[in-house]
């Protein structure tokens, strides 16, 4: 009896081995079809192959968009969509290759200028596509991340906000569905820029901007196209149309640079102790609040445009990039006064003074500014 059993077991083992071999072969085929570097390909495990295949398919569906749905016409479709402006379609392979190389240069340039990476998110938060420079910012490569879910890599407190950005209503799509938010993502980069363990990952603040896109098709995909830029901690200020200011955590001015006088009419000392909320147009209160909350929670923020009231009347449109500066205790290497936790803002003035004779706030009625 046992011999029989043994035999049966041996047969089933052999069958299992055969099945696995076949399966591995198919996986191998699949991975060879993926446009990956050979070195990367060799190290892929099975779930990753599927994950990347999914991403590949989804990205292509995304790009086909509303135009084509059948794979047979995908060739023509792709070129039709891509060649806007009525340029001639290159017919031969060689030309296509040059195109490709040019496109590669251009897109590399974009990514470099952007100082960020491109991310395509599904409505469930799966990172369908990431540009390959993501490794520069997150320490993890494109193939490691693609197909995974963004909620695995972002700060739990930001999940609600991310979810609300992923939600899409029909009306929004009609209007263009812009997205602009700040979130914290894990970065496995060390200070020196080397990749480290995810265990020792730090939070990196990313400013994500983009739009939602819906592609109609048999498997309609709607997703978010985002550029993700880490918010810089240092700013190079060249312009006379920018000023910096320092605030206590409740957004009252504690310091302001001289350039504010030419831009808003106030001298730096006049602003000390005043709340930024007093100095801005009431309708922009919510914009500022959001900015303030982002700062308190995520330590960095971009405000979007709001109006700052000019001394004596009128207002200017501005945008502020801010960060929370950790408190500095005097130490041997950095002697000096103790600097408490504070907010540093770099404000870009976008417009000239609008409606200079209009006095909207109490403060403007009291002062008179002669330009």
């Amino acid at each position: 009896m046992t011999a029989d059993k043994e035999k049966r077991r041996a047969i089933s083992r052999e069958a299992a081995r055969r099945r696995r071999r076949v399966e591995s072969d198919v996986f191998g085929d699949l991975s060879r079809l993926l446009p990956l570097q050979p070195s990367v390909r060799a190290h892929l495990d099975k779930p990753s192959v599927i994950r990347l295949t999914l991403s590949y398919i989804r990205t292509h569906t995304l790009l086909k968009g509303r135009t084509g749905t059948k794979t047979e016409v995908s060739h023509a479709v792709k070129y039709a969509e891509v060649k806007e402006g009525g340029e001639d379609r290159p017919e031969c392979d060689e030309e296509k290759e040059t195109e490709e190389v040019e496109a590669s240069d251009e897109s590399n340039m974009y990514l470099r200028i952007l100082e960020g990476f491109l991310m395509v998110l599904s409505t469930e938060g799966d990172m369908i596509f990431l540009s390959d420079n993501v490794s520069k910012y997150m320490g993890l490569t494109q193939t490691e991340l693609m197909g995974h879910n963004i909620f695995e890599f972002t700060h739990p407190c930001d999940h609600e906000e991310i979810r609300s950005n992923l939600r899409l209503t029909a009306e929004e799509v009609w209007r263009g569905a812009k997205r602009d938010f700040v979130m914290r993502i894990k970065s496995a980069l060390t200070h020196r820029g080397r990749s480290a363990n995810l265990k020792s990952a730090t939070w990196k603040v990313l400013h994500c901007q983009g739009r939602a896109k819906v592609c109609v098709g048999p498997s309609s995909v709607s997703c978010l196209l985002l550029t993700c830029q880490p918010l810089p901690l240092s700013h190079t200020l060249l312009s006379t149309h920018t000023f910096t200011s320092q605030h206590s955590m409740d957004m009252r001015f504690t310091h302001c640079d001289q350039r504010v006088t030419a831009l808003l009419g106030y001298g730096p000392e006049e602003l000390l102790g005043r709340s930024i909320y007093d100095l801005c147009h009431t309708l922009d209160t919510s914009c500022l609040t959001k900015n303030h909350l982002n700062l308190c929670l995520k330590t960095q923020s971009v405000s979007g445009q709001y109006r700052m009231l000019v001394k004596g009347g009128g207002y200017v449109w501005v945008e502020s990039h801010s960060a929370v500066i950790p408190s500095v205790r005097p130490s041997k290497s950095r002697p000096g006064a103790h600097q408490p936790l504070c907010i540093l803002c770099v404000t870009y003035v976008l417009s000239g003074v609008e409606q200079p004779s209009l006095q909207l706030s109490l403060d403007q009625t009291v002062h008179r500014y002669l330009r």
Partner: protein
Amino acid sequence: MSAGGNDGTATRPADPTAEEEGPSQAGSSLPAVELPRKRKGDVEERSDTHVQQSLDFQMDDDLSRSEGEDQQVKMKCFREPHSQIEKRRRDKMNNLIDELAAMIPACQPMARKLDKLTVLRKAVQHLKTLKAGTSSAFTDTTYKPSILPHDDLRQLLLRAADGFLLVVSCDRAKILFTSESVSKILHFSRLELTGQSLFDFVHHKDINKVKEQLASSELYPRQRLIDAATGVQVQADSPVRPSHLTTGARRSFFCRMKHSRVAGKHEDKPSLLITSKKKDTYKYCTLHCTGYMRSWPSSQLDSEGDTEKETSNLTCLVTVCRLLPHTSHQPSKDVNVKPAEFVTRCAIDGKFTFVDQRATTVIGYLPQEILGTSCYEYFHQDDLQQLAEKHRQALRSKEKIETQCYKFKTKYGVYVSLQSQWFSFTNPWTKEVEFIVSLNRVISGPAHTKDEEAGSSKALQEDAKQIPIIPSLSSGVGTMIYAGSIGTQIANELIDTYSRMNSSPSSGAPSPFGPAQEKGPLVSPPTSRSASSREEAAGSSSQSHSDSGTAAGASSAASESTGEPSQLDFDSMVVPGLSSFSSDEAAMAVIMSLLETDVNMGQSGDFGDLHWPF
């Protein structure tokens, strides 16, 4: 990327004995920890993820571990039975297969679920067909492959970024190159732009700003840097370092550029777009331009080469210009302003600190005429009670408080019916209310007003038994000190709440009916923190008999409290001059108690005991 369990098994793709691969992160041949794939924001797995995330995650491709080590790691991190780990791995694989099946058109019409191998085979076929549609360069091994053809990447990028590439020469600001997407954003074609001077398209007021950014001369004034670690500005007083000019020096600025008006397409344009006052009818949009400086060897250019001696290179600015998102500044969902509406902002005591210019058409006053005065001075006396209550509510609630219709006195003495939404703004850091935003809407219709009057006088008569009417002066603007004090008192309550919360002694607050305080009548909240709390006012008013100013109106009202007062009586009352009003505190206390809606204060009997201090 954590394993279904906590093992650190290495990937063994060729291992025939492994049933399922230890899930590992792609690109690594190492023991890796894989996070469970989240589906639809799956929250239940969170705790597991957390646990797994704390495990080692090797990313360095060069490292390799021996089998023995793996086993050790596996044992060390063992938290679940092995079967559970296996099950999880299988489930994960099955989920992936299902997702794959959903994405492949060939797999979809099938009624029954396809087995793993079939799905995989169909996936292979599908990929082959997809690839057939792409350029051959894609499969060329000498060329760096990428998941997306670069053309598509470029498209995606520009669509996401809502921007275009711009290359401008630094010396003459000539546009050398723009990407195709410029036509979507500026509505000018590439041809119209290339070769033109950038300054033809930039808003005239921003020309200087842009010139600054393009300037690559060494004479450019100091470059300012902010050291983020200390927040200190570092000024490079010496002439700009050479690196500033070389390739890579970054630029980031905002500027307004013309864009052709396209009729009917942009009705939702935000007010940020301003029409040029000149005779050309262009509209401008604001762009955020970020990029860097780059040098092109002049040999590559036809006739653009610099003739200067120092350098034969042409320096350019290469930027991506992104359209600023409009959503951030559009009136948020909180404050959705429509015509015949205006916005005001008040300090917590009700004094106007901000008035929208649209208010003028409604109330007749220019903003500067009412700024600094209390909103209560303009409310009709019938509405004071209701509004004060709403005021109190607004200060304490994060919600929007809707007022009922009320009458607001316009410049010309006529009342206009308004209805407002009030909500308080709390500083996210200090959690204190800083001001109240009021969205005011005009309610039209005379019939409405009449009802209001009838209603209010009726209510008044009922209430009158309990609460005397607040006296008001029928003429003059800004002389309604009593009314103005209402706001101050309400504000003071709030401040006391804060100070009590901060455990500062508030019990030491003096009785309002004690020796007169040396405070001006219209005192703003931060300086009148010693005002008594509600409870004290209520308590002490019943005790006080004496002095502190007079307000004949109130006293006669009190004496009439048991009677049948009518509004008309007040006009005939002798109202003391303002100078006889020596204490604001006293007035506040009275008004406070008048507005008190506590049941305790409502008994008519109690009022007999009260001796109004006026």
